[in-house]
């Protein structure tokens, strides 16, 4: 018979945390499925939103930035260039936002039943993956439409996608915990994400960043590394810059671990404070 022991005081990240999360993997999956269903159930266009959002944003950027300014687009059609950027960004921003609201949205659940609380932000980050894949499908279709065919480098696609998910989970996890204590997160996050859109090479190429800073910038900003890799792979048919991409994945995993530890430290207060 399982014995559960709880000692008072703040919680902390331990080996048991991972074992428990594994034990609750089916619950995590149930939440992911649920969020996907709930998100589109009451929307008329339904799952179409996953496509409309990045496409419209890419159109707007392509139109204004490239027609009326002189930002370089790496020698590919402007729409293709921005669409590749928006595909990753749309996922990252909406998954981060969904994850960071997850504890507050599900407060009724926090007060009524036990499960490891990180299941909620993690499911928020994972629920967006379906959208990401759909948007990626659109990108591929547009790529074909411009007469660019698939390349061997496409086998590397999972890496930037993984990077995006890890990064969204890292930010979403930490922000969701802070959001329980300070609802300021709710108001600050859209603004910060908007800044993030301009701080990341979504509507401009990574090459705009001065070369002495480029590598460290692309590693520390996971969205930059992911976006640049996506473009290289799909649009140009090249291999991504592996050292930068892998370093950024490592950095994001480190961030995720830190935010997980931070989350576990605050977790015990959630049901009392939410």
């Amino acid at each position, binding site marked *: 018979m*399982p014995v*559960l022991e*709880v000692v*008072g005081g703040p919680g902390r990240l331990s080996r048991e945390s991972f074992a428990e999360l594994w034990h609750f993997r089916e619950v995590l999956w149930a939440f992911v499925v*649920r969020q996907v269903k709930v998100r589109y159930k009451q929307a008329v266009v339904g799952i179409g939103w996953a496509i409309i959002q990045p496409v419209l944003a890419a159109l707007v950027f392509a139109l204004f930035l490239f027609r009326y300014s002189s930002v370089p687009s790496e020698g590919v059609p402007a729409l293709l260039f921005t669409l590749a950027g928006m595909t990753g960004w749309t996922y990252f921003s909406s998954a981060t936002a969904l994850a960071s609201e997850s504890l507050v949205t599900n407060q009724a659940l926090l007060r009524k*039943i036990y499960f490891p609380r990180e299941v909620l932000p993690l499911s928020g980050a994972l629920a967006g993956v379906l959208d990401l894949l759909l948007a990626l499908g659109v990108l591929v279709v547009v790529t074909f439409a411009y007469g660019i065919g698939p390349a061997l480098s496409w086998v590397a696609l999972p890496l930037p996608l993984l990077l995006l998910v890890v990064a969204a989970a890292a930010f979403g996890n930490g922000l969701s915990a802070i959001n329980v204590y*300070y609802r300021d997160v709710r108001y600050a996050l859209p603004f910060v994400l908007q800044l993030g859109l301009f701080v990341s090479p979504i509507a401009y190429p990574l090459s705009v960043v001065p070369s002495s800073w480029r590598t460290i910038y692309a590693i520390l900003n996971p969205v930059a590394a992911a976006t640049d890799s996506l473009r290289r792979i799909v649009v140009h048919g090249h291999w991504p810059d592996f050292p930068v991409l892998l370093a950024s994945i490592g950095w994001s995993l480190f961030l995720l671990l830190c935010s997980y530890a931070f989350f576990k430290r605050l977790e015990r207060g959630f*049901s*009392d404070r939410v």
Partner: protein
Amino acid sequence: MTDAVVFENVSKRFRGGQAYRALRDDIVGALGRVVGLKRGSEQVVRALDDVSFSIPEGQSFALLGPNGAGKTTALKVASRITYPTSGRVRVRGRVGALIEVGTGMHPELTGRENVDLYGRILGLSRRDVRSRFDEIVEFADIGGALEQPVKQFSSGMQLRLGFALAAHLEPDVLLVDEAIAVGDAGFQYRCVERMRELVQEGRTLVFVSHNMSAIESLCERGVLLDHGRITADGPARDVVRDYLRQVEASLVEEDAARSVTGGGLAIVDVTLHDESGGRVEEAAPGRPLTVRLHFHASSPIDEPIFEVGLNDGRIGPFALASMLIDGQAPRSISGEGYVDCTFADLPLLPRVYELWGGVRHGAGFGDLVDWQRLRFFRVAGEVDGGGPAAVSHSLSNAPVRLPYRWGFGGGVSN
């Protein structure tokens, strides 16, 4: 025997104040502390204060106490919905909990999905859950609503499904709060029956309720909590008795005889006397009791109509002595004096009663002194029959004791 639930020096403190803070407030607070303008003076509420007890496997255990004593917090700590500030909690086996209406349910999920989810959280396999599914649906009696989100359920349906989930998915430890009191009588009966079944199967039950009869008849052991501390621990019946006595005592204490006035007349004191005329604080059951109303009339009053009633907490007196009925009003009263009302051979069960009184004008029967509660009094003695809820039932039900006996005809085996 191993223990199913162990609390070791468990304390739980809540910081008072608003539920969540704005960053601004914390920054201002921190700055204030740094500059020395203002001390951190947040109010700390101790929901549990150094609580230790252990519940052996298979025991039926009750937590009693007034509102705010920490009972629900204890259940929440045992089910890991909230965490202790200090101390150690150990729980052996799967925990099913019904703490509030909707415990364990996701409002957006359908009834069916909730059954699945709860099973998964408890660590049951899909097959185990499925095999219990019909039983749960039948108990919850939600038939057609199974495919609707739980948020569209009525609170009664949520309650039934919540209890069915907690009590039918093989819990080793079942935690039940007074939430079931929200259900109708039939549902409450089925809940108590189900809890009894689980106890008989050797599961552990932790029950929180204000229904003393249910506790007395269902539980072996009780712990009384008050302001987060344990004040009694023992056989459920004894703890129920202690608790009810304590409630009575606090009633009597907080509301001793008071002086009431109106229309130039004051009832300054109400005293009790036995048959020899000596003053008493408790009435003896089955003996005469005299209620003495001490009055002060600032000017003479003609034909004041005195009334005295006995009440056991329900609406209206269950016994009344009224000069409006018996016509024995004095011709006149003035200055200081008293009026005695003697009840012969008080046929009341031992517990606390309310003594009500009022005085009317002889002409037109308008109130001189409003009809109101004058004091509490206790009928001494102990009732302790052999019935399953002897203590709680006799302390909370019909007050008048009539001698009775049971007889049996055909078709009764005895």
